[in-house]
């Protein structure tokens, strides 16, 4: 299982806004974020749900997109966030 995951929704404007930042991060750092669309792919949705105990305390008590999860440390950030915050999460 990949270390860095991004859960996103096809019709989520915040997710769309984050995509260029994710691209920039991957180019700059060489890190790869494995992307999982959750509303049109039930396997991806089940995957995100499997992380529910880890995600909800860090994301306002809900499963939200976009959510960025480090599967090794369980650190998660969610929402439309500044590039610096995304990079900080990715590199921890």
């Amino acid at each position: 299982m990949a270390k860095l995951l991004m859960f996103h929704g096809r019709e989520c404007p915040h997710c769309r806004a984050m995509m260029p930042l994710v691209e920039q991060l991957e180019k700059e750092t060489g890190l790869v974020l494995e992307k999982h669309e959750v509303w049109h792919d039930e396997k991806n949705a089940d995957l995100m749900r499997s992380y529910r105990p880890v995600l909800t305390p860090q994301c306002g008590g809900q499963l939200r997109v976009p959510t960025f999860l480090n599967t090794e440390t369980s650190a998660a950030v969610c929402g439309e966030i500044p590039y610096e915050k995304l990079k900080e999460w990715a590199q921890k």
Partner: protein
Amino acid sequence: MKKKFWRCFVCNDIHYGLKPPEICPTCKVKNAYVEIAASEAKVITGAAAEGPFTRDDFIRAIRALAEGQEFMVNPDAARLETLFDGVFNNEQNHGLKFCPCRLRTKEFEEDLKIVCPCNFLIHETYKGVDKGECWCGMFVKR
């Protein structure tokens, strides 16, 4: 405590909740509600059902909701189109107008919290925030 179905014996309004309205919103009669079975409520509301609820119906409904409140429907038309695609796709694929910026847990009661419009007044993106908005941005503070 479990929610129940109630019928106004004067005008046949149907209510779903722990308690019925003291004054019927339609005929204004006091103490007119009687508890009924879910099946009876289904028959009465089923007969009244018209065509599908279109996007225009939905826009109309959320604008009516926002009228006179501290929030309004986001004036960004392009964003709204994306969000409407989301809620309508989710309704088609998953049964209800789930927020396209959350994910359902598949626990029915829990997932009712993310049916659009949701109770965004309590979310940290809205409550006490200057240019607050609901999580997906469909509703924004005026």
